[in-house]
């Protein structure tokens, strides 16, 4: 048996590796371009990352619990459309935002109920719900975008709060909240235990279905917040907004060290992974490399990251037993 610190280090390894990758990228890009390390560019990166982060925090909990949520991209569109329609109907901005966020919670609730009470596979449930939600948003808008909102609403996408902007602030708050929830509350702990051994948790008398459902509600709310940001930033509610965002979120969560089988994952890891992806995107733009390479690179980085941490995990297991 190894010493405690060594074991702790081993558990932190995926996150440390990711931090090293981030540091390496920053140093490299700083060497290659004098513009990279300016505050306005840093703000750009954070702004870009904020959307990933908001989506991925919710997805982290879902993946930790051994599930998946493919409907978040559609929720982004749906919540934006609902906010826009409410505002166009003369409902106050605050209430419109609340209704939009509530729609995300309701869709999450439907996902959760179908998954935990009707016992249908999360992949199937959220895939179908994704299709239903996307279709509904198109029907509600006749496929046309809704645009032109009041300043007070646009502020949440492109305003300024000191040196940062509202999306960055929202994402930082959500990350802090997510870290606290996952590591230090019963709810977060159960998310991980659900992904590790659901039956064991049920046998201790915990209402497993309720906890599982609430995780999807949380993820739905996160997606709706992302929808709010997108809508406010573009000053447009698009029924096709958020296309394939679920894939970006899954990528970030996995890159952040979470295990798709559930039971392992960290919000901090997800946060760093989002920064890595945003820095990469920004770097390629600065170096005027075609953004098509970004897709290729993202895929390669994820496979490498997962392969390395899986290899490390197996090795550490073998050396102990």
């Amino acid at each position, binding site marked *: 048996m190894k010493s405690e610190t060594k*074991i702790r280090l081993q558990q932190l390894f995926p996150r440390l590796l990711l931090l090293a990758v981030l540091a390496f990228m920053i140093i490299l890009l700083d060497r290659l371009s004098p513009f990279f390390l300016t505050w306005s560019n840093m703000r750009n990166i954070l702004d870009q990352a904020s959307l990933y982060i908001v989506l991925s925090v919710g997805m982290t909990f879902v993946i930790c619990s051994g599930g998946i949520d493919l409907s978040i991209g559609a929720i982004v569109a749906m919540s934006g459309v609902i906010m826009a329609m409410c505002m166009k109907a003369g409902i106050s901005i605050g209430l419109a935002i609340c209704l939009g966020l509530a729609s995300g919670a309701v869709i999450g609730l439907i996902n959760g109920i179908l998954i935990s009470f009707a016992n249908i596979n999360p992949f199937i449930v959220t895939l179908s719900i994704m299709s239903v939600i996307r279709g509904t948003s198109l029907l509600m808008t006749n496929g046309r975008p809704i645009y032109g909102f009041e300043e007070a609403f646009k502020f949440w996408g492109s305003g300024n709060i000191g040196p940062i902007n509202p999306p960055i602030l929202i994402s930082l708050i959500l990350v802090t909240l997510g870290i606290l929830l996952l590591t230090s509350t*019963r709810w977060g702990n159960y998310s991980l235990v659900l992904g*590790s051994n659901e039956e064991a948790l049920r*046998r201790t*008398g915990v209402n497993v279905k309720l906890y599982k459902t609430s995780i999807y509600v949380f993820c739905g709310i996160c997606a709706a917040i992302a929808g709010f940001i997108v809508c406010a930033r573009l000053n447009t509610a698009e029924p096709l907004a958020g296309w394939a965002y679920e894939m970006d979120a899954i990528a970030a969560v996995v890159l952040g060290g979470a295990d798709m089988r559930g*039971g*392992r994952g960290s919000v901090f890891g997800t946060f760093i992974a989002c920064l890595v992806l945003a820095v990469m995107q920004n770097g390629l733009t600065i170096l005027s490399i075609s953004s098509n390479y970004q897709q290729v690179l993202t895929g390669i980085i994820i496979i490498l990251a997962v392969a390395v941490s899986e290899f490390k995990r197996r090795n*550490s297991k073998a050396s102990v037993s």
Partner: protein
Amino acid sequence: MSETQPFLQVKNIYKSFGHVEALRGVNMEAYTGEVLALVGDNGAGKSTLIKTLSGAVWPDCGEIWLNNQKYSRLKPKQAIKIGLSTVYQDLALANTRDVPCNIFMGRELRCGILLNKKAMYTEAQKLIGNLGIKIPSLAVPVSILSGGQRQGVAVARAIHQGGKILIFDEPTAAMGLVESAAVLKLIKNLAEQGFGVIIISHNLEQVFQVANRVCVMRQGKVVNTVRTADVCAQDVVSMITGALETNSNLN
């Protein structure tokens, strides 16, 4: 038999699944401070009996008396609350989680809405220490612990839940010699500390090593209860197979 009042009494329990009569009027008693072994062939009804005690299965009729309180149907949470804790064969551990998380699963210590990790860590250390089990670091995922250590974690959870009667379902199945010995020692230790222990086992050699009494089940009934000191393994085998008919079997 001990003169004291039995802590747990099972009276005339019946349970059928469709046409299969799994339990046909089971009577059993368990005392604190002793190890009771439940033996019998496959399908004799041992697991069903245990499940009625842990609340996983509701008996069709019959009574469970615990500490002079009568219960006809137990829910899982209620069973744990009144002191009947089951250590399952699969141990029901969350493999990716650390030792305190597993011990306190379902009954986490908190201050406010946040988990009190420090208190759980120290408490876990105490619980594991009292069991005489050595785990170098409680912060490791339990998947990398040995079979004996994992059993210890599961037992620590049962004790923390307030278990007075600890039920073990095949505790040494799929374990090597050294690990089995550690688990048997742990079980004996528990009885000495005043817990009532019920084990289901197919391994008669181990039963005779740890148990004070043996309860033999056959075809949904308890056919005989004997003290291990009074019989030999051969007798018990005859009771299990039915070669040795007993008065309770003749009605």
